[in-house]
Every structure is written in structure tokens, then in C-alpha cells.
């Protein structure tokens, strides 16, 4: 009997830099021990300055990303502006709590820049309990690994290039000690001028 969040495997980290945020996730899709996909999308762009990472049960990753896309489109049509990261974090938290007693098995990570360019990151559990941090947040099947790596390697106020290096190394090292996450990764660095996305080549196992 396996926990739903441990069937497919995932690892996701968001980290704050100087006027930028980064969000990274692995790209493995597994059915417990068997790897069935090596390019599974777990980070979704909400708008130019807002990304959300969804580690957890793959079917719920699909459902929640589509649901948030629905809500975001309506927000944009009605408010005629992009949603702020903090408001989006609250939106996804409330969406999850609506299913308090039959939850969605995803533990989202939100990363973005607000309208003044200030970085924002948050993570929450599967029923929407948000946690805000000024440095980094992690979520997935190897949180202890990711926390350990981030605590060791994080430095405040890193420039985008340095943030990418730190984030990439934290993710790759953490997933190496977890059987069900890994097989490559993707990192998005969000700055006021745009987003740089890079794929990571990790151990293919």
C-alpha cells in the first residue's frame, strides 16, 4: 500500500536570488520502481512572472495545472491584469482546501516576482497549508535531501547565473539519493527582464 505522493516521484525547489527567483524540478515519471517517462512536466508557467511546481501524484498534477489555468484565465479576463504571486498562492491553497477530506495529492511550490519586482516563493502541503520563506522552499519525495542541500549551499542575494548554479546543484545532488526522482531536471530563472529555462542532464537512473 503506497502513499499516493510516492507513486510517481518528484522533487521541486524554489529559491530566491537578487531581484530574481528560480524554480527547479526533476523530470522523471515513474510507476514506483519502473520509470515510464523522462520528460514529465512538473513546473507550469502561469504568466511571465509566475511559475508553479507541482510534485505529487501525476494525475493530480495534470488536474491541478488545468484547474489553475482555468482560474487564471478567468482572473485575467475579469481583472484585466496578471495575478500577483501571493494572491495565486492563496488561490491554489484554497483550491486544495476545498478538498480537505478527499485531497488532491500534490504539494505545490509557487515562485514569482510581484508587480514591484520583489521575489516571492511559497510551498504548501496537500491541503493548502502555505509556508512562506525568504530563502528557499522544497517539496517532493526527498524533502530531507533537498533541505539539506539548500541549507548548505544557499547564499542570499545571488545573481541569476549564480542562483542557477546553486539551484541546479542542490536539485541534482538531492535526487541522486532518492530512487524515485531524478532522471534529469529543468530550471527556470525568473527575472524582471524575462525567464531563462535550462534543462539539466543528471544521472539517468
Amino acid at each position, binding site marked *: 500500500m503506497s502513499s499516493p505522493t510516492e507513486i510517481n516521484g518528484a522533487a521541486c525547489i524554489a529559491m530566491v536570488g537578487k531581484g530574481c527567483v528560480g524554480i527547479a524540478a526533476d523530470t522523471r515519471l515513474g510507476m514506483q520502481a519502473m520509470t515510464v517517462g523522462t520528460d514529465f512536466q512538473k513546473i507550469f508557467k502561469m504568466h511571465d512572472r509566475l511559475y508553479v511546481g507541482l510534485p505529487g501524484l501525476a494525475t493530480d498534477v495534470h488536474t491541478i495545472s488545468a*484547474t489553475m*489555468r*482555468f482560474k487564471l*484565465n*478567468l482572473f485575467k*479576463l*475579469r481583472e484585466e491584469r496578471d495575478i500577483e504571486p501571493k494572491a495565486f498562492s492563496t488561490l491554489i491553497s484554497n483550491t486544495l482546501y476545498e478538498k480537505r477530506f478527499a485531497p488532491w495529492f500534490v504539494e505545490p511550490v509557487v515562485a514569482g516576482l510581484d508587480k514591484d519586482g520583489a521575489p516571492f516563493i511559497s510551498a504548501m502541503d496537500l491541503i493548502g497549508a502555505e509556508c512562506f520563506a525568504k530563502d528557499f522552499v522544497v517539496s517532493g519525495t526527498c524533502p530531507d535531501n533537498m533541505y539539506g542541500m539548500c541549507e548548505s549551499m544557499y547564499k542570499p542575494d545571488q545573481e541569476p547565473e549564480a542562483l542557477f548554479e546553486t539551484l541546479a546543484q542542490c536539485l541534482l545532488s538531492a535526487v541522486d539519493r532518492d530512487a524515485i526522482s531524478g532522471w534529469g531536471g529543468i530550471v527556470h530563472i525568473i527575472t524582471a527582464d524575462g525567464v531563462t529555462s535550462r534543462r539539466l542532464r543528471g544521472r539517468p537512473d
Partner: protein
Amino acid sequence: MAGYDRALTIFAPDGRLKQVEYAMEAVKKGSACVAIRGKESIILAVERRSAAKLQEPRTLNKICLLDDHLALAFAGLNADARVLVNRARVECQSHRLTVEDSPSVEYMARFIATIQQRYTQRGGRRPFGISLLLCGHDPDGTPRLFQTDPAGTYSAWKANAVGRQSKTLREFLEARYDEDMDEAGCVSLAVRALLEIVESGAKSIEIAILRAGTEPEMVPEAVIQAVATAAEADADAAGGGPAAAAAGSE
């Protein structure tokens, strides 16, 4: 006939639904809208009623986006329009969620018209006092224009007008519409049509252009002014200015 207009769900002896007809009267009082379907793009033009001095004109938008490929303009009761537009927006997203494809223009026109019809058959509610011009491109890129009315009928058009003086505007369009008009020609025709009935010229006109694959674009006032000036110059030169103006306004 007295008494047959109280309840919505009663037919008058001559087969009419009075409440629906009265709703259409409400539409005729609304500010004018014109829509023209060109070969590839669609032009949506509305008469902008002047805002009160202390009012923010930006919040009086009559061209509403339903989705990134659909827009509509309405004539009639603003509040009714707000409710319908909101439902339509939610339905667009719902369609995307369930079938993973954007809704066709006809689907949305049918959806909105169905809501409008429902309010003509159940007692206790009044019809929506709205006629709307729904424009957009189908997923395959074909431009489409639909009109709905308070009775809940909908039909496709090449060019149409609703609201104030819509009959006059429609006749104007019928005389000058050409299937092969390009985008600039459609914009010019829309401006010329509305100039026939608006009070303060180009300042009272708002135009949106819908092209396949991109979001609707609002035309800047300077461009509208330029088109209006050119149109007036053409009309004077052709000598048809005074005659057209006399026929257009009453």
C-alpha cells in the same frame, strides 16, 4: 391586448411574447454597435456614450473579451450584459478544461442564446435586455460573426449592427459591404457607418480588431480620427456627403 404583457410565460392571442418584444425595445435604446466580418479579420466598433465628468471612461468598456480569441459588443442593459459575459467567460474556460480545445464562435453564440431563451420561458424572471454581436475565429482560423437577441435566437452575419439606429446602420452596411474587403476597408466602413449616427465624431467611436491567432487589438484614437477624416474627405469629394448624411440621420 392589455394584460398579456404582465407575465412572461403567457402568449398574447396573436402569438407574440410581449415581454420579449419589450426587451427588444430596451435594446434599441442602447448605444450602437457595428461588426463587420472581413476575409480574415473582424472589426467590432461601438458608439461610446460620453462619460460624466467625474466618471472614469476606462471602466465603461463596451467591448468585452470572452477568451483570448473571442470578443463581443452588446446593446441594451449594461448590468444584464455583465451577467451574461461572466457566464460566457466561465463557459469558455470550462470548454477548454473538458475538451482541451477552445470553443468555436458558434458554440459560444449557441450557449449565450440558450441562456437568453431560458429566461423567456420560465416564469418569475424577465428576459435579458441585450442583443450582442459575438466575434471571433474558430480553431481553424475562420472568422465568424454571430448576433443574439433577447428572444434567444442567434444567427451568423457578414456584417450587422445592434442598438440605436441599428436599422439605418444595417442598411448602410448592406449598401457598401463587400466580401473581399481587407482589414483597412472594414475599419473604414465601420467608422463611416458609426459617423452617421454619433454626436462627437471619432471621439465617440471605439474599435477592436480581431485577427486569427492573436489577441484582439484596440485601435488607438488617433488612427480612428485619421480614418474618419479620410472618410469625410472621400464623401465630400464624391459629392455623396450631404445625401448620405441626410439619408443616415433622421
